[in-house]
């Protein structure tokens, strides 16, 4: 606390705001809270500048992408809360690098109470991954985004198919899986081995013009992998079985 007061006195920072930030008690925590969260690993080219604390990231089209992003943001130090992530595959999350030791899951009993739950976790955790139960109200989303900014917590919203109600106005970063192509599965043989996806990032500032990245999500073994040799084809989306048979493993 003394450290905080010292900073307030010397730097002319808005001390009251600092004090109100979730449970900060020392300058080290303040420093950690103000540093951008690096996106490490294969997702790095997508967000090389990292994610600023307090920003909101919306992930659409793939739960695996949300898990991979949270995993790379969290590292081993940060605490992650999953609100309404009931059916999210924890084993898949682990394969994607999301540690379980600093992961706490909150299941609000009904859709009225999930904004309360998210708000409570935003006060304390470093990263909050939320999956709105049912249709999210735009008003709630806006309020939670403001709160995340106040508390310097990264809010990761997972849009699942059929629940894209509010559309998350004003999100700082949007990630979306636009193309996907599974490998390894044949006509009655093999197994789902890896998936090639196209991820598109858009958002504010430098992200305004958008970025595109092809990834193995998940790669062999379940983790996200970067594609080392660029493949000529730009439309890897394929629904017919012809291309797959060549790569299928039996």
């Amino acid at each position, binding site marked *: *606390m003394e450290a905080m007061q010292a900073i307030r006195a010397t730097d002319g920072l808005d001390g009251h705001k600092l004090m109100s930030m979730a*449970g900060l*008690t*020392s300058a*080290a*925590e303040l420093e*950690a809270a103000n540093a951008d969260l690096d996106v490490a690993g294969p997702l790095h080219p997508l967000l090389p500048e990292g994610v600023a604390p307090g920003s909101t990231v919306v992930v659409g089209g*793939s*739960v*695996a992408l949300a898990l991979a992003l949270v995993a790379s943001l969290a590292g*081993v130090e940060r*605490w992650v*809360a999953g609100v309404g992530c009931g*059916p999210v*595959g*924890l*084993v*898949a*999350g*682990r*394969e994607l690098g999301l*540690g*379980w*030791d600093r*992961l*706490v*899951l*909150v*299941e*609000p*009993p009904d859709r009225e*109470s999930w904004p*309360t*739950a998210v708000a*409570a*976790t935003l006060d*304390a*955790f470093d990263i909050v991954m939320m999956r709105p139960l049912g249709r999210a109200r735009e008003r709630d989303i806006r309020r939670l985004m403001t709160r995340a900014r106040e508390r310097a917590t990264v809010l990761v919203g997972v849009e*699942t*198919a059929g629940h894209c109600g509010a559309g998350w106005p004003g999100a700082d970063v949007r990630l979306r899986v636009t193309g*996907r*192509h*599974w490998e390894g*599965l*044949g*006509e*009655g*043989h*093999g197994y*789902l*081995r*890896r*998936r090639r996806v196209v991820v598109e990032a858009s958002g504010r500032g430098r992200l305004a013009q958008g970025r595109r990245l092809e990834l193995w999500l*998940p790669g062999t*073994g*379940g983790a996200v992998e970067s594609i080392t040799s660029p493949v000529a084809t730009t439309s890897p989306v*394929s*629904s017919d*079985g012809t291309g*797959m048979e060549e790569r299928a493993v039996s």
Partner: protein
Amino acid sequence: MTVMEWPAVAAGFTPAEPGAVMAGNRVAAVTEAARSAGVRVGLRRREAQARCPELQVVPADEARDAREFEPVLAAITELCPRLEVLSPGCCTFPTRGPSRYFGGDRRLALRVKETVEATLGGRATVRVGVADDRFTARVAADSAEKLSPNYFQAGEGVVVIPAGGSADWLANLPVSTLAIEASVPEDLVDLFRRLGLVTLGLVAAQPAGQVLARFGFEGALAHRLASGLDDRPAHLSVPTVDTVVELAFETPVERAEAAGFAAGALAAQLEERLSARGLSCTLLLVVAETEHEERSERRWRLGVGPMKASVAERVRWQLDGWLNGPAAARPSAGVTLLRLVAEEVSPAGGSQLQLWNQPSAAPQRVVRAIARLEGLFGPDAVTVPEWRGGRQPGLQAVRVPAATVDLADQPATPARTRSGEGGQTPPWPGMLPPPSPTVVFPAGDRALVEVLDERGERLRVDGRSGPATPATVAIDGRRRKVAGWAGPWPLVERWWDPDRRCRQARLQVLLEGGDAHLLVLETGRWWLAGVYD
């Protein structure tokens, strides 16, 4: 300072009542009236009652003895702040400072005696002995009446042995005096007597080294005591403080905010009391009661910083979850009593945070948020994953309530057993290889799906028919063509257990449009078990 026959006093007898405290059919303590009737410590119950027919008998209760002694200690603490309780009814304290203040050992001793007697309402005989060491002081207090050496005036119940005079004073006492010290075994006292060392002076005259060699540590201890030396340095307890504050509301409080506000004032009061002793509270018990005797209890670990705001917030969280919780658990009336108990105290200022410290394993804020969410939604709503292992993705990870996991106790490095990463995960033959489905539906929450083969018939899996060839899959009524599939892989688990047995076939399907699903055939129907999203 010794209160004579403390168990009898603690049992509530006055000296005029013939009463005795029995431990295991033997008299453990007697009142003055019983003593004059001939009842002695160590008599059998029947003998004692024969000597004194009107004797009232109470069973021994150490908890009662200790409890009743607390007010006495509190009264002494006012005079001498640093106390050591030897047993209920008997305590020692260093006198140098207080003696100087009150004008000598004798004055202090009389003062203590008066204070204790006043506290007990004159029900007890109090003896005070002052000496260089604890043992001599205790013997002096115990024997204030029986012995009549030069150092005390009979009747005052106070014995002051002058500095350096302990060994001389003890020299003529019988060796059996050692038995009042619990750490000296009775056998040893008996052995001394049989060896002809009948007084403490004779014991003390033996060379210390040879006593140690012959009688071991117990002998050495007895030798030290007999020589008027202390057996150990004084172990002084932190003074006991009243750590409970409570507040009764005249009109029941219905709103958590109002109760939290009151709790803040209460906490400030408790903090003031603690900080006057140089203490701070680290674990606080918050108890709220309603008119109808419903209770909510919760322990809160407190960090550094002023208690008022943090306690107010915690009480608000606790009561918010309780007063506005699910109807079944909600109390039927407003809160009428609020009690704060400092369960753990530590010297204030002992928990200084480092300026550039690393974030701790489980920051207080996380623990607090978890407690708050538990208060809002119940303990089952807040979970942490734990690795269990298994063949089905839904069973490999179980969610255990966070309340049952000590998050603060976790090491800072991520090699852990809870996540199954520390050791080698044993192989589970028949487990689907990674990647695992990113959406997993638990067994009770799966949607029915329709899987049809090329002829439009329901896909069956059994030993006799040929390989199953799924052609279309309908999920939520939407029918889509199958682009690729693998399986079905049968899985039979725990066939011996009627409750947990599992007999199923699993099928990975890739549908047109790129969606991959894990389907499970169980009880003759296909279910959607997971999505590779």
